[in-house]
């Protein structure tokens, strides 16, 4: 903790958990979309998010984050209009997501190129977030560090191949957190790798070339 965790952040009100945290959840989706053209989002709000989203502007905050705005951007207030102007369709659905943190949102995005994806995460207080799921797979990261998601087939040696590449090709690269989840033995799996500092150039391309890796996504610090 430092002094600016207490005096700060600069944010758009009214609530650090329901507004600022919601922007950051939206920003995770912005990173997942990574500059591709967005056509539509379906946002499911659960728990306290579902009950109080209008009064806290949680809907505007999530959309603003998806469009790349920050928790201090004055545009949050007008995010619904800005989305309409940009031709982004949006829908908010109130639904209790089972066993989820009270401030949970699930964002399903649809791209112009036909691609789509889903992110589920929670605003856990003070503007901090925890991402729980990406494309149906369990993950766990808070966006404070640069995070690499590696989608792959659950085969022996894949983790070693990824971490060896990171070590031998990029000696300065340090992993600060590692999490693996899989749907079934031998099935789809996902690594969540948080790293210290900046990811080196070409790292993502190199990871994607590893056998049994289907995709790798970099989510830069939120």
């Amino acid at each position, binding site marked *: 903790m430092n*002094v*600016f965790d207490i*005096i700060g952040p*600069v944010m758009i*009100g*009214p609530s650090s958990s329901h507004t600022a945290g919601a922007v950051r959840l939206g920003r995770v989706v912005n990173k997942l979309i990574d500059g591709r053209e967005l056509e539509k989002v379906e946002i499911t709000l659960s728990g306290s998010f579902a009950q109080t989203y209008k009064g806290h502007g949680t809907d505007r905050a999530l959309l603003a984050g998806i469009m790349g705005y920050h928790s201090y951007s004055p545009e949050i207030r007008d995010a619904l209009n800005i989305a309409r102007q940009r031709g982004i369709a949006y829908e908010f659905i109130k639904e209790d997501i089972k066993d989820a943190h009270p401030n949970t949102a699930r964002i399903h995005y649809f791209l112009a190129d036909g691609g789509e994806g889903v992110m589920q995460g929670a605003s856990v207080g003070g503007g901090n977030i925890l991402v729980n799921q990406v494309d149906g797979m369990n993950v766990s990261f808070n966006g404070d560090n640069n995070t690499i998601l590696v989608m792959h087939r659950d085969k022996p040696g894949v983790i070693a191949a990824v971490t060896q590449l990171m070590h031998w090709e990029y000696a300065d690269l340090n992993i600060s957190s590692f999490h693996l989840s899989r749907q079934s033995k031998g099935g789809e799996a996902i690594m969540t790798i948080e790293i210290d500092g900046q990811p080196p150039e070409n790292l993502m391309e190199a990871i994607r070339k590893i056998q049994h890796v289907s995709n790798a996504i970099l989510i830069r610090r939120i």
Partner: protein
Amino acid sequence: MLKYESISELVREAEARGVKISELVLQDQSEAMETTPLELYEKMEIDFSVMAASVEVGQRKDQKSMSGLTGGEGWKMKTYAEKTNGGLCGPFLAKAISRALAVAGCNASMGRIVAAPTAGSCGILPGCLVSLWEDQGFDQKDIVMSMFTAGAFGMVIAGRASIAGAQGGCQAECGSAAAMAAAALVELMGGTPSQCADACAIAIANQLGLVCDPVAGLVEIPCIKRNVSGLVIAFSSADLALAGIEAKIPVDECLDAMRRVGDALPDSLKETAKGGLAATPTGLRMQKKVFGSNQEET
């Protein structure tokens, strides 16, 4: 490196080195964050300028919250203070009150604020500091420096008690903000580090047990007006300490008590909108008006 585990540590270190707590903290934080004191000072200066801007925004006549439940409080109080030469509180305090209302109102209307320490309690520190700057001619540099003292006290409170309403009730939000502001005010007025600690202890002791009971779960009722009571307590606690009236219970023990009181508070009084003012017939009616149904039904 400082540990920020006790306020007595801050007082002891500052007195041993013969510096203000803010100077001690700025030096320490620039080492901890691996940057220069100037860079941190400039970052804090931006926070102060945002605070001053939220006062302006929140004092507009047409200021209205997102829910429509509140609005215009900062403007009303400012107008009243000007018309009556300060009403009962006197011009300085009445205007400071209007500033605290304004910043809390700015927050409720999705304006830009500095969480200090939280969004719900964001009016107290600017209400105090902008008033010394605009109405008492204090130097901006000293004001910005005093925010390091406020921040350091907040770090200790966060670790030793809590700064989250969901964890410790409103004493953790407006209570912490008032205690931080009281310490900053004492330093600005030329008080000693030990008097800063006294002011903090007095402010905490005055708000122990304050519950977090937001109507409809929104950061409006009673939060906006609690920023006013927090501001008044900050000023009175600072004046008490400066007058040489010591806190009888040492500040760190007050913080430990605050944590225990927070733990003892039932969940209904910790930001869940299930108790206190939120659970009154009028509070529930407002909830229904804003959200169409109350939370029990959804």
